[in-house]
Every structure is written in structure tokens, then in C-alpha cells.
């Protein structure tokens, strides 16, 4: 229902708000399906960062949806065929939680039964993400890094001469500033908690990176344009993003040099489980740093431009 309304409204501002609401409902649905880490990431990214970025791009492009110049019949045909094919494929899929489904047969029992001893951490999601499927997560981190690279190539980070770091766009906001100022270190502390608690509860590198970036975005929104840029210059962010990916890849290369397979964590310490712990810690650190710097970079790129009249 929310999706239909989002399509029908032409006021893009309202559409962004509706997207935030939609992503929130999806997060609640994920929680109901017992997928807490995914819900966490969905709430952080979908309702938080995406709303801010979409609003800053709306600020650049204008608020009302332009009327289409011709009827997009070809697009409708393509979507209709693809949608029908997807629905047909889903009809054949096994039901949720069906124990005889192929996805539950091959590797999953091993993950579930032996994950806790082999990797040594209670949170199975982090164990699968960082250790069993470490290659995939490495690919994801490189994708995030590439996205940041693409934004840099396309938009660039402009230091707008009209920006005044001390002046906030929403005017003289004593209440807002005095409330947000003590809140910021608490947000950073929460980000650190989520980063390192990912072994036991929900959390991990992706969520923690987004939370860190949210703290800086909040600082930038409340204390004036460019104030976050004064604290974390964009030159640092380029290097931090690369550093995140390098840490992840570096762990893999180290285990190669130690004589085992790429990203085999047992090469990191004498006791294999200890090596797994160390490996997951370093890898999540790399992911967190990469996500934080890329999200903040994209925010700088979007918010630094003013509307060209």
C-alpha cells in the first residue's frame, strides 16, 4: 500500500518520507522472520542514511516529479514480463522453513552444528559472514568501495565558497545544538559497541560503520555546512576507505604468506579458534572502516553542491 502511494504521489519529498516508512516496515518484517542482523542493517541504512542522501539529492534536483514526455510502454512491457517470470519462479520455490529445501541440505547443517565450535562465537550470522563466507564479504566490501569511487568520479567533492561552517542552515538553534552536542559521543560509543559486540548479538562491521557515519552526518546537519568537513577532511576519507579494504585483503594475503589458503584464519594464531576470533575481528574492523568512510564520502559529495540556478 505504501509502495503504491509512493508511486502515485508526484511530490518527491513525500515520496522520500514514505520510503523511510516502507524501509522501517521491512525492518520489522525481518525481525519477525528472526533475522535480526539484517533488520539492524535495514533500519540503519534504509531509514537513516538513504533518507538523508535522497533528501540531499532532492535539494539538488528539485521537488516535483517531471511529467514523462511520452508513455513508457516498452518499460511497462519489460517489467510485466520480468514480473511474471519472477512470480512463476517463486511459485515453484520451497516454502519458508521447509526442512527438505535444497538450501537447508548441503552446507547449512554443518554451519549450524559445528559453527559454534569451529569459529567460537555465539552469533552464527557473523560466523557465516566473516569466516565461512569470507570471500563474499570481501566482495561486498570492494563493491562498497567501488560505489564510493564512482560517486567521487561522477560528483567530486566541492568546497563551496558560499558555505560558512559556523552558520547552520536552520538558523539559530540553541536547543538543538545543546542537545546534540552531548549526544554525539554517545552515538559513537554505541557504534563501537555494535562493532565489537557483533560476535555475540546483532551487529558487526556494516551496521557499526553506518552508525559512525550517522554521528558525523548529524554533526554536519546541526552545526552548519562544512563543519564535519573541518573535523574529517575528505582527503582522509579517501585513504580511510582504501585502508578498510586493505585491512580485509591484508588478512587474506597474510594467511597466503603463512602457507594456507586466502582468508584462512587459522594461519593467524597458534590455536585455530583463537585465529578465527582474531581474523573475524580484523575483518569486521576493515568492513566498518570502509563502510564509514564511503557513506560519509557520499554525503560530502551530495551536500557540498548547491543548486545551480
Amino acid at each position: 500500500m505504501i509502495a503504491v502511494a509512493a508511486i502515485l504521489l508526484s511530490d518527491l519529498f513525500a515520496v522520500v518520507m514514505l520510503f523511510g516508512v516502507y524501509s522501517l516496515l521491512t525492518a520489522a518484517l525481518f525481525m519477525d522472520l528472526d533475522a535480526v542482523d539484517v533488520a539492524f542493517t535495514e533500519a540503519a541504512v534504509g531509514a537513516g542514511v538513504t533518507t538523508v542522501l535522497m533528501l540531499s539529492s532532492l535539494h539538488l534536483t528539485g521537488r516535483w516529479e517531471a511529467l514523462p514526455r511520452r508513455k513508457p510502454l516498452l518499460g511497462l512491457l519489460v517489467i510485466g514480463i520480468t514480473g511474471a517470470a519472477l512470480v512463476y519462479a517463486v511459485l515453484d520455490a520451497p516454502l519458508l522453513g521447509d526442512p527438505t529445501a535444497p538450501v537447508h541440505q548441503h552446507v547449512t547443517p554443518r554451519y549450524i552444528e559445528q559453527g559454534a565450535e569451529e569459529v567460537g562465537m555465539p552469533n552464527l550470522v557473523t560466523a557465516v559472514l566473516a569466516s565461512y563466507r569470507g570471500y563474499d564479504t570481501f566482495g561486498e566490501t570492494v563493491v562498497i568501495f567501488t560505489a564510493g569511487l564512482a560517486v567521487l568520479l561522477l560528483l567530486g567533492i566541492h568546497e563551496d565558497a558560499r558555505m560558512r561552517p559556523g552558520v547552520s542552515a536552520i538558523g539559530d538553534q540553541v536547543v538543538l545544538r545543546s542537545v546534540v552536542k552531548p549526544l554525539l559521543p554517545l552515538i559513537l560509543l554505541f557504534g563501537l559497541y555494535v562493532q565489537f559486540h557483533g560476535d555475540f548479538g546483532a551487529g558487526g562491521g556494516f551496521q557499526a560503520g553506518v552508525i559512525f557515519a550517522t554521528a558525523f552526518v548529524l554533526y554536519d546537519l546541526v552545526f552548519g555546512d562544512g563543519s564535519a568537513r573541518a573535523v574529517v577532511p575528505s582527503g582522509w576519507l579517501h585513504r580511510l576507505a582504501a585502508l578498510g579494504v586493505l585491512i580485509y585483503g591484508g588478512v587474506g594475503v597474510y594467511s597466503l604468506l603463512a602457507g594456507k589458503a586466502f582468508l584462512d584464519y587459522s594461519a593467524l594464531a597458534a590455536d585455530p579458534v583463537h585465529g578465527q576470533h582474531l581474523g573475524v575481528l580484523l575483518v569486521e574492523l576493515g568492513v566498518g572502516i570502509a563502510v564509514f568512510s564511503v557513506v560519509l564520502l557520499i554525503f560530502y559529495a551530495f551536500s557540498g553542491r548547491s543548486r545551480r540556478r
Partner: protein
Amino acid sequence: MLTAAIVAILVTMFLALIRTFIGPTEYDRMLAANSFGTKTVLLIALGGHALSWNSFLDVALLYALVNFVGTIAVMRFFEYSNASEKRDDPGTAA
């Protein structure tokens, strides 16, 4: 009693959603979206306890934060085009 509170929160969320759809000005929509977000935090906290979800309080804490940042972002990007670009002086004293 917990279920009664959860039902009350769900009803309020639905009312706030109606206001998001019909609010005549953008400010109404912004207010209703913020209200929806706060109610969602309460829903996750109460519902998570009732349904015994795993680590639900972390999600609730995160969403309370995200809701606040989203509201501030809406104001900043919505008011900026009206206010700050017309100003010539450095603005009122901070």
C-alpha cells in the same frame, strides 16, 4: 496488558500514517513521519519482548537515533532552499 499496549501503538501508527498521506503541508507529513518513527521504536521494544526476538533492544535504540537524524535532515534540506540561499548576511548570532 502487553498485547493491549501493542495494539494501542499499532492503532496510533495507523493514524499517523493517515496523516502522512493527507497532510496538506509538508510540515504535517514531517511531523507524522517523526511520530510514526517514535511509535515504531516502542513497537519494537514491546513486541520484541512479547515475541522473544533476539537482540531487539539494539534495533530499537538504533531506530530511535535514526528517526531523530531523519527529522533533522528533513528540516535542513527542506528549509535550506527557502532560507539560507536568500541570506546575504552571515545570519543571526549563534
